[in-house]
């Protein structure tokens, strides 16, 4: 227990890369008085500092908790392997950046989990904090381990390690949890009492209060609460309207991967793409008004000194006042200059018009995501882009002096044939031909092809992952068809895809695999050059789980899925209906054109489909 001494850090930090990752004291960092604050929380991000500091959720929750009179919130990130080695060699425990208190001193360690491939870092961070990784081995006085983020919607692979999960948006539920921590701490309650109190909070999932029963073949038989406090299902929390965004975000010295002010302009998406987990789990759609966005941008720019701002949402061109917002922010002669990015554009001419507004004189490259090559397959995934839309958008881009167009596609989509993949080749060639008309040999098309990872809470949650043989054959079709100096083709690593797919759909038993892989040295699995594949293969083998079988199996409608006790507000019946419509090639409208009955109206209070819906 205690503070990691400055002298110790001074002796050893100069020996690691980027010491400022481990120092804190950035502009807008908040250091609240330790002794006077009843509840002490540390936000833990299981990736390196530069990645974690680019996460909007971290900035939002840091702001929310530090505003509470009864709590403080500090930060910690996964130490890079050189730092980890140094910490282990010198006996330095994982500490928080603000006060340099070691993690074991906090009441609450809250992991933010945005991605499947950094779960081994969660275990590693617990271990570096000197805590047993398994929840049932941690003593009562150990900090409570909380986790939230998109991974919490399918939490079972981490159920052995995490005390409680927050399902959904943390802005309101986190203060409720902190109030319970404060009350139970004052009362001197034991851990079980505290967990039972937490289990009653809407949106909190305490895995130990749910029993998992298996069928003889290893599939799930049932997930059943074993205490009256446990909710079933656990319905995610939403905030409506969106609370004010953080206006004093922390400004790192080490350059974060997204080095700009981030203003969330909208949460949720109405497009209904069937592969998209974010589109399902972040429902319903809530917009910030033009005035709110513009004021937030101006305040954040003033409070940070940023000259670049990202307007964040799942589909920024869908904001009803996006053009007006851009005009308010980007006027001639603005001092100091401001540049604006919209990270997620649609594939249409309107989006190019927007890009013209915000890119100004910069023309780095414009990205479109048609996702599938043939109209038939775009209908299957409910990506409402026609070939004509795409070609018009591309033409508008090249005509407006962009020389580079980036295209995103997926393979491994349900019902996909080689002909659909050949359609990608033809589409890309058509795009390249338009580029050539405008820019001759300077035109460039960059094509990124990923493999569909079927995600929980999407209509494709029942779909298998594409087998490797077919994947290679289809990649070959692309490779041969797109051999041109004007076209650059990139893939995602198959091992990463497989691991992501297994963890995405894994149940509670997968926790043992994760623990074994971590013990064998797996860390930073998302970083291709750090992925320790041998450790994973050995861990799967030792636990008798064949990852190929796990992901290549089509689930039936009546099969119990490992996340069936978690509800994101979109009903299982709707997802199945969407899956059936998908394989029949039937599209479903954008729900702003009329409610499509996903369940969010009843469960979340959605009004996106109109008041009458």
């Amino acid at each position: 227990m205690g503070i990691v001494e400055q002298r110790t850090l001074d002796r050893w930090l100069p020996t690691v890369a980027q010491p400022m990752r481990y120092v804190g004291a950035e502009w807008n960092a908040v250091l609240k008085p330790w002794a006077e604050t009843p509840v002490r929380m540390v936000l833990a991000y299981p990736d390196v500092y530069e990645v974690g500091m680019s996460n909007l959720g971290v900035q939002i929750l840091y702001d929310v908790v530090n505003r509470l009179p009864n709590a403080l919130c500090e930060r910690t990130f996964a130490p890079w392997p050189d730092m980890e080695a140094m910490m282990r060699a010198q006996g330095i425990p994982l500490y928080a950046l603000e006060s340099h208190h070691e993690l074991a001193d906090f009441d609450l360690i809250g992991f933010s989990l945005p991605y499947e491939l950094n779960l081994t870092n969660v275990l590693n961070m617990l271990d570096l904090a000197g805590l047993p990784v398994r929840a049932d081995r941690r003593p009562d006085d150990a900090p409570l381990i909380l986790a939230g983020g998109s991974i919490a919607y399918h939490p079972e692979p981490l159920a052995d390690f995490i005390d409680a999960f927050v399902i959904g948006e943390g802005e309101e539920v986190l203060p409720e949890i902190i109030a319970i921590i404060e009350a139970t701490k004052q009362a001197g309650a034991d851990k079980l009492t505290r967990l039972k109190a937490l289990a009653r909070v809407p949106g909190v999932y305490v895995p130990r209060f749910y029993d998992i029963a298996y069928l003889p073949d290893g599939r799930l038989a049932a997930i059943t609460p074993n205490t009256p406090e446990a909710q079933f299902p656990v319905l995610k929390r939403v905030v409506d309207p969106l609370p004010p965004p953080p206006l004093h975000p922390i400004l790192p010295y080490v350059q974060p991967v997204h080095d700009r002010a981030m203003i969330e302009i909208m949460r949720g998406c109405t497009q209904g793409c069937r592969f998209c987990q974010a589109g399902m789990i972040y429902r319903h759609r809530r917009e910030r008004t033009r005035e709110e966005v513009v004021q937030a941008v101006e305040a954040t720019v003033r409070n940070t000194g940023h000259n670049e701002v990202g307007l964040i949402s799942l589909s920024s061109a869908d904001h009803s006042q996006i053009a007006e917002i851009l005009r308010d922010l980007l006027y001639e002669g603005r001092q100091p200059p401001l540049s604006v990015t919209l990270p997620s554009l649609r594939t249409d001419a309107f989006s190019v018009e927007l890009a013209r507004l915000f890119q100004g004189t910069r023309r780095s490259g414009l990205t479109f995501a048609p996702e599938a090559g043939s109209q038939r397959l775009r209908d299957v995934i409910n990506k409402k882009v026609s070939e004509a839309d795409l070609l018009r958008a591309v033409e508008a881009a090249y005509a407006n002096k962009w020389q580079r167009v980036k295209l995103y596609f997926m393979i491994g989509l349900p019902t996909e044939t080689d002909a659909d993949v050949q359609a990608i080749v033809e589409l890309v060639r058509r795009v390249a031909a338009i580029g050539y008309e405008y820019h001759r040999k300077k035109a460039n098309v960059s094509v990124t092809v990923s493999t569909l990872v079927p995600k929980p809470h999407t209509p494709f949650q029942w779909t298998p992952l594409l087998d490797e043989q077919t994947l290679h054959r289809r990649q070959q079709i692309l490779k041969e068809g797109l051999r041109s100096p004007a076209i650059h083709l990139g893939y995602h690593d198959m091992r990463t895809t497989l691991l992501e797919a297994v963890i995405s759909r894994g149940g509670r038993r997968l926790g043992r695999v994760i623990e074994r892989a971590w013990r064998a040295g797996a860390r930073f699995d998302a970083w291709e050059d750090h992925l320790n594949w041998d450790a994973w293969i050995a861990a799967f083998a030792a636990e008798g789980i064949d990852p190929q079988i796990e992901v290549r199996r089509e689930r039936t409608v009546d099969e119990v899925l490992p996340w069936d006790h978690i509800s994101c507000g979109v009903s299982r019946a709707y997802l199945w209906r969407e899956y059936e419509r998908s394989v029949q090639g039937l599209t479903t409208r954008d729900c702003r054109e009329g409610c499509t009955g996903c369940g969010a109206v009843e469960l979340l209070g959605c009004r996106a489909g109109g008041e009458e819906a």
Partner: protein
Amino acid sequence: MSEGRTLYRMRLVFSRGEATKYVGHLDLMRAWERILRRAGVPLAYSQGFNPHPRLTLAMPLPVGCTGEREELDFWLTEPLSPESVIERLRAATPTGLDVIEVSAVDLHAPARPACIRRADYRVTLDDIPVEQVRRAVDELLARQTVMVDLHGKHYDLRPLIDGVSVDEQNGVVFLNMSLLRDTQGRIGRPDALIEALGLGAHVRSVHRLGIFFDA
């Protein structure tokens, strides 16, 4: 960058403390850019695709060192009084960067890095008797040449050493060094001298007391 515009040049003297001593040079420049924007001073930007303000640090500080009087020149599009710039900057600087003074500088004054004559450092040592440090210093100063390798360069440090002294306060040993910049622009680095003295393992902290200029 200044086509058709009248610019005003200012010089900031600041100290760099513990909280920012590991900030790398490029990261520090980005931090100053943002501090100046937060302070709301009218920075002059380069023209072109990606406008950036013009800032010049007199002498980068090696990572891990603190500094008593560091210098940064910056250019404005409107004349502001040094007092008002100081006031605005003080409200915008983070822990570990403290504004000491701001002055107006002639626009055509030579670039500051070219005017450096020498810099003085005070090094705090750990776990070493003062006599041993004195001996190491005496031996080194008695040599005609002190060949060092630093960042892939092999050179003679001896002519860049203006002076080295040792003192002790309350049992703590300090090494004071004054290092020169020669006519070819080579600058004596404190870490090179510490290595040459064989004291690398005993350094607790390195503090730059000041930079001294010809003009």
